[in-house]
């Protein structure tokens, strides 16, 4: 009988150890790029609708635009892509593009001006969230038939409502919404007059180097070469982006060679990878800002001295030297570094005595209760806890209200927060993208419902700055325009109920054989087609 028990025990242990036989350590195939990233924000690939970070990473590799950035020379600004040249009329209101030859959609159809006309009109007519990037030039669903016109297959004419800075207009066309789709394929898949919107959510028909072949929401995106791509054939024939939430997991996968690139490493994991053979870290300045803002409906928080005290009582260096180490650099102006007109002034540094003195001059020398709204992301909660700690030293009674992204945003848009702590990323690579939201609020009434404007969300009335911001978008002299933004930012730093604290540095970990990985700088998204390994 004991023998039989021994047999059972043996069988069991065999089963258990059988699990351990398979060892997992492999190298990724040489023509394939494997990336771990957080991509759970992707909801759609339709360029007229897509407005998320991970979506932009896909879109840039799938859709070409009239003008675009060269990934290996981002500082050069926009360059010809589908349009080989453009001209602006005397009155500054009409831009005429001449289309380039040799661009072909993944369907095999050549790219013509008609496709560009269709794509831009469509983006205006569908009126999805990012459509403001185009409609700010006066395009409406009603007038696109006259304002966005392709007189022939080779020419596209845009008619604006005002003479804007040309750089402003072209910068906007490099945004995701400027992606040109294959009109024929989109219209073949039209349902209920949606111009292919439902179909393009999950399918891509662009002229870029890649096409999406498989997308599992919250899991992975699989891209293969566009067989008809007009440019040089990229070295990476297949790109797989896998959704991996945890930094620690990404690090382990990178160490073991299961992936080529890890895009969400925490400062600790970056430090942990420093001595690992075969792995390197590439730093890249991105456009994302971390800031807090104070609702001006709150009496205490509308006292300029209270705001000034709060700005002085934030431990900028302490945070960027510890839990944000290497991933955020102190930055206190609303234009990210590398943007036209960006300034590097840092008027505030952690000085609790100065903060106390400033607070003493306010109507609230003892401070009072303040609620900080923050979404449930670890780095933001850490920043909030640090603010809670240092503002608490001023005597403020700080409570953290942690919620999901939607909850926190909901309160913010309804102007119900005290202090909102959050991040802001530019929508298009022109200074107006941030000036137009931080420093622009033409109507501060509740009825205006300008929920897209950060100044409005904080009930901040700023008639003078709003005018200056408006003036800056129509200034066609680049040097003058740069000076205008510097001036706006300096004034903003002194008076705004916004405490801009940090600018993001993306630290991508990758196998050392990966070359030319460019996440997109402050202005655009990632470019897989130049990568080699």
């Amino acid at each position, binding site marked *: 009988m004991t023998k039989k028990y021994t047999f059972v025990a043996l069988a069991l242990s065999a089963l258990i150890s059988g699990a351990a036989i398979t060892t997992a350590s492999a190298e990724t195939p040489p023509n394939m790029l494997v990336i771990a990233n957080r991509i759970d924000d992707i909801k759609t690939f339709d360029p007229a609708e897509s407005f998320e970070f991970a979506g932009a990473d896909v879109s840039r590799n799938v859709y070409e635009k009239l003008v675009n950035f060269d990934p290996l020379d981002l500082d050069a600004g926009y360059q010809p892509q589908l349009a080989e040249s453009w001209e602006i009329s005397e009155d500054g209101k009409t831009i005429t593009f001449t289309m380039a030859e040799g661009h072909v959609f993944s369907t095999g159809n050549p790219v013509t001006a008609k496709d560009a006309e269709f794509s831009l009109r469509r983006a205006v007519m569908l*009126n*999805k969230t990012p459509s403001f990037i185009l409609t700010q030039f006066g395009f409406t669903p009603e007038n696109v038939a006259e304002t966005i016109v392709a007189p022939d297959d080779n020419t596209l004419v845009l008619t604006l409502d005002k003479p804007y800075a040309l750089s402003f207009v072209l910068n906007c066309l490099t945004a995701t919404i400027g992606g040109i789709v294959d009109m024929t394929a989109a219209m073949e898949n039209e349902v209920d007059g949606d111009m292919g919107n439902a179909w393009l959510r999950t399918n891509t028909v662009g002229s870029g180097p890649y096409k999406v072949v498989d997308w599992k929401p919250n899991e992975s995106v699989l891209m293969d070469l566009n067989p008809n791509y007009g440019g040089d054939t990229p070295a990476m024939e297949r790109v*797989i982006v896998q959704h991996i*939430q945890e930094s620690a997991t990404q690090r382990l996968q990178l160490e*073991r060679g299961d*992936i080529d690139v890890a895009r969400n490493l925490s400062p600790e994991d970056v430090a942990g990878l420093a001595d690992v053979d075969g792995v390197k870290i590439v730093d890249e300045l991105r456009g994302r800002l971390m800031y807090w803002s104070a609702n001006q409906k709150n009496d205490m928080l509308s006292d300029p001295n209270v705001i000034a005290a709060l700005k002085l009582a934030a431990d900028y260096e302490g945070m960027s030297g510890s839990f944000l180490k290497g991933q955020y650099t102190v930055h206190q102006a609303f234009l990210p570094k590398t943007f036209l007109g960006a300034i590097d002034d840092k008027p505030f540094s952690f000085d609790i005595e100065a903060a106390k003195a400033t607070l003493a001059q306010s109507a609230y020398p003892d401070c009072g209760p303040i609620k900080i709204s923050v979404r449930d992301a670890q780095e933001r909660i850490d920043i909030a806890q640090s603010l809670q700690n240092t503002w608490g030293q001023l005597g403020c009674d700080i409570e953290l209200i942690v919620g999901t992204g*939607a909850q926190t945003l*909901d309160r913010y848009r309804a102007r119900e927060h005290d202090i909102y702590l959050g991040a802001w990323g530019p929508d298009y690579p022109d200074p107006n993208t941030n000036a137009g939201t931080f420093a622009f609020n033409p109507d501060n009434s509740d009825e205006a419902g300008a*929920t897209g404007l950060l100044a409005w969300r904080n009930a901040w009335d700023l008639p003078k700055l709003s005018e200056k911001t408006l003036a800056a978008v129509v200034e066609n002299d680049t040097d003058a325009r740069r000076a205008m933004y510097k001036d706006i930012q300096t004034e903003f730093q002194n008076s705004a109920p916004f405490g801009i604290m940090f600018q993001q540095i993306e630290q991508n970990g990758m196998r050392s054989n990966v070359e030319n990985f460019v996440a997109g700088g402050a202005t655009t998204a990632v470019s897989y087609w130049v990568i080699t390994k």
Partner: protein
Amino acid sequence: MTQSVTTADGRQSPSIPPWLRKTAATLLTVAVTILGLLFVTFMIGRVMPIDPVLAVVGERATQAQYDETFAALGLDQPLLVQFGIYLRDVLQGDFGRSIRTGQEVATDIARVFPATFELATLGTIIGVVLGVPLGVLAAVRRGSWIDQIARFVGLIGYSMPIFWLGLVGLLVFYGILGWVSGPGRVGIFYQGIVEPITGMLLVDSLLRGEWDVFKSAFSHIILPASLLGYYSMAYVSRMTRSFMLEQLSAEYIITARVKGLSEWQVIWGHAFRNIRIQLITVIALAYANLLEGSVLTEIIFAWPGIGQYITTSLLANDMNAVLGGTIVIGSIFVGINIFSDLLYRFFDPRAK
């Protein structure tokens, strides 16, 4: 869950055979339960202070775009009307569209459910294969060291936060020892190689003859499945032990021993035979618990299953997705309960 056959009203109509009445009553009960389940979920979604519209239109939307989506989602209708519309669509097989993934909920579930099913099934198999012999052994050697160990191992299983054990397990077996693969279902570069048949990667890769994919999938699933299997084992072994104890003290066992049957025959041939039905019920319940209880495991192991799907949808107030997922899990739960009830009725003489 006992089926309250008492729900059928007291009147007897002689023309209807009793089994039909019973079946009808059971079906009615199931329908009412699932309807209630949906109603509660629906109401929770509607009082939740998370705005689903924002999830669709995003941070920069204008008020007009917001309002348009608000109406498109049907949120401008009265609550009960919304619920009615939802039910009508579900009865026609339309579970609506998820706002988070932008896809049909039915498509999403068809993708995520097999992942959970695969994980829970393997977990249960491990739990049963280890738990049943352990329970039997503990009962036979009652009070011995093996009994004490079985008991202690079980108690530890009940006391360990699964998400923590998962973290530690990943660190040790993947990070340090490298015995198993990390989170996810399969090595990333094997993505998209196997065309789904059942949606279960282990099965599909075998059917397609993709041996490498199978190996990769197996080394990914084994750790989370073992973890779930451990919890299941704790429960199964405990129940097995107590069923066996009851049998072993019964008179017929003594008779069998007196008749000179070997100990092996007494234990497996007689005592174990008699607890089979009870055991199946317990296993079915353990299985249902794993299906619904794998939420945290799925999150730790980045396992793209239904638990994670429902949770993340819930936090975005993506109610179509949450409702769809709840229907699936709830129905399985109810189904397993009915199944074990039926087993009892047919096989257990005492229940008749």
